[in-house]
């Protein structure tokens, strides 16, 4: 009963995500990407929609400081966004990774600063400067087992095999338990921060769907053994052995044995 409800909710979320992606992508395509804006001008063109204008205002307020008024970046502050594409913008904003206070910090997942409509506006504005469109992933079309195999080979080195995150020297690698299929697809194609990127020829749409199915599955992994203690393997297991079993047995030993020598 609860599971069906959860599935229905997820499906709904996926549908909404897909529609948003479609509309954003369509919005991006509507904008004239062919005439690139003249350097120094931040206007995507005179025919810009209200959405793009709203995005331009938001950009000027919060993004231009590091990424430059003309989206060409500022040395040591932020990379250029010309050609970054809608996928990158949507990924960074919808996961709350941008905006960031200190440009040398690692952008980490947080509650998004902007509302969905503001994000759409920024996506439309930056997307107007060209770049890849927002991709999609469909977990319901994928296979969990094939996804596990692909994920283990391509992703587990950094993200850990059950997607609980980890580290690479120089960066924190996020857990992927609360990632939406769309964000997964964006990250795979864009390669945010220190992550490598994967082209459509390397990781096809089918494989992407498989990975999305695997990630959805691992949100609530098969814990037939009992309490999953974080799905991190031997470190929490050692903690349980020392702290839980150790305390219990110490209590037993203190009860059975004499306290005073």
């Amino acid at each position, binding site marked *: 009963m609860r599971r069906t409800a959860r599935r229905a909710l997820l499906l709904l979320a996926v549908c909404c995500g897909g529609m948003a992606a479609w509309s954003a992508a369509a919005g991006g395509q509507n904008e004239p990407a062919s005439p690139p804006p003249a350097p120094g001008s931040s206007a995507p063109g005179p025919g810009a929609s209200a959405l793009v204008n709203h995005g331009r205002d938001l950009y000027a307020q919060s993004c231009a400081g590091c990424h430059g008024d003309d989206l060409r970046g500022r040395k040591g502050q932020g990379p250029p966004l010309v050609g970054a594409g809608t996928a990158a913008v949507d990924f960074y904003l919808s996961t709350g990774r941008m905006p960031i206070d200190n440009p040398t910090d690692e952008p980490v997942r947080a509650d998004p600063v902007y509302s969905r409509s503001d994000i759409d506006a920024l996506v439309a504005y930056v997307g107007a400067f060209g770049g890849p469109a927002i991709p999609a992933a469909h977990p319901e079309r994928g296979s969990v087992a094939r996804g596990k195999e*692909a994920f283990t080979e391509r992703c587990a080195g950094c993200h850990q095999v059950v997607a609980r995150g980890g580290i690479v020297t120089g960066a924190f690698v996020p857990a992927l338990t609360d990632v939406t299929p769309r964000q997964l697809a964006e990250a795979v194609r864009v390669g945010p921060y*220190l992550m*490598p990127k994967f082209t459509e020829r*390397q990781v096809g749409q089918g494989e992407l769907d498989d990975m999305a199915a695997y990630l959805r599955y691992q949100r609530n992994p098969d814990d037939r053994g*009992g309490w999953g203690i974080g799905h991190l393997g031997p470190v929490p297991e050692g903690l349980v052995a020392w702290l839980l079993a150790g305390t219990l047995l110490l209590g037993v030993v203190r*009860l059975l044995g004499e306290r005073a020598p």
Partner: protein
Amino acid sequence: MKALARLAFLAGAVRALRRRRPPRATEDDADAVDLPRRELPNDRRAEAAVAILLVVGGLLAAGFGVLVVADPQTQLLGGVLAAALACVGAALGLASKRVVVQEVDVEERHPPRAEDEARLIEELKAGGEGISRRRVLIGAAGVACCGLAGAVVLPVTGLGPALGDAPNRTPWRRGKRLVDARTQAPLKVDDLEIGSFQSALPEGASPEDLGAPVAVVRVDPRALRLPPERRDWAPEGFVAYSQICTHAACAVTLFRYPVYEDTSKGPALVCPCHYSTFDVLRAADPIFGPAARPLAQLPLAIAADRTLVAAGPLSGSVGPSYWGVKPSSPSTHARGSLPPRGGAPWA
């Protein structure tokens, strides 16, 4: 300052320890206690509790037996059996402390006596009486022992062939095609963009071979800082290194490639076991962690059908170091042959 802190800590510790225990009589009255002691319990409530615990434990244990047959669900099984064992264990513990006779007994120790030892030595010596050529016999026995030990130990070498040159042999040859490690599809130049990473094997190789897997990454060719003799090993920015860490043989499956190098670390391959970090732009030079040798590099070439092929064998030994390992040039031998690190764009 430090001394003060130490004193404060000590005073606190001592006070805490003192407060915990009420003072007791001194130990000088040791001989006054009556030992051995024997007290007969008469605790009917404890007896009842033990009986109840035993019965409950027995029922639970029987329940476990039923569950194994009827519905073996791990949590239920563990919980029921643990409860059964805990009940019976608690019953025994309680019986030990409340139900049976409480005794403190004294047992004398019996240290070994010198006269026993002397007698033993005499006995041992007596066994050798009447032997005239003692030394010859001892020497001969020594030979027999060594021979027998050898007969037992030397066959151990039959357990394994000598490692010999194995880590220096890899299936990579000039012209070998690189294939996707999972799908076995040939790797095409256009499959990877700058900032992409792919695990690859030589076509038709055994996946069990340490020398087989390589990490293929594509970087901006202008950023590459390979030593001069390796200039043409990386066509169009494709570089390939052995995927087996030179520290402890884990698969180097982490590739970090920055979106924006000014605010983050540069491109590197990283091992997930002990986080040895290899600079992909500079011939996999180890820049952090315990690895002391670069990963062996595979020279690449692009075939006419735009697939990636090996342009030669790996540049050095694969995997962990040992006496016979062939250190991969250049940086182990001649660090100076690499361009200065300042040349890297993020440095």
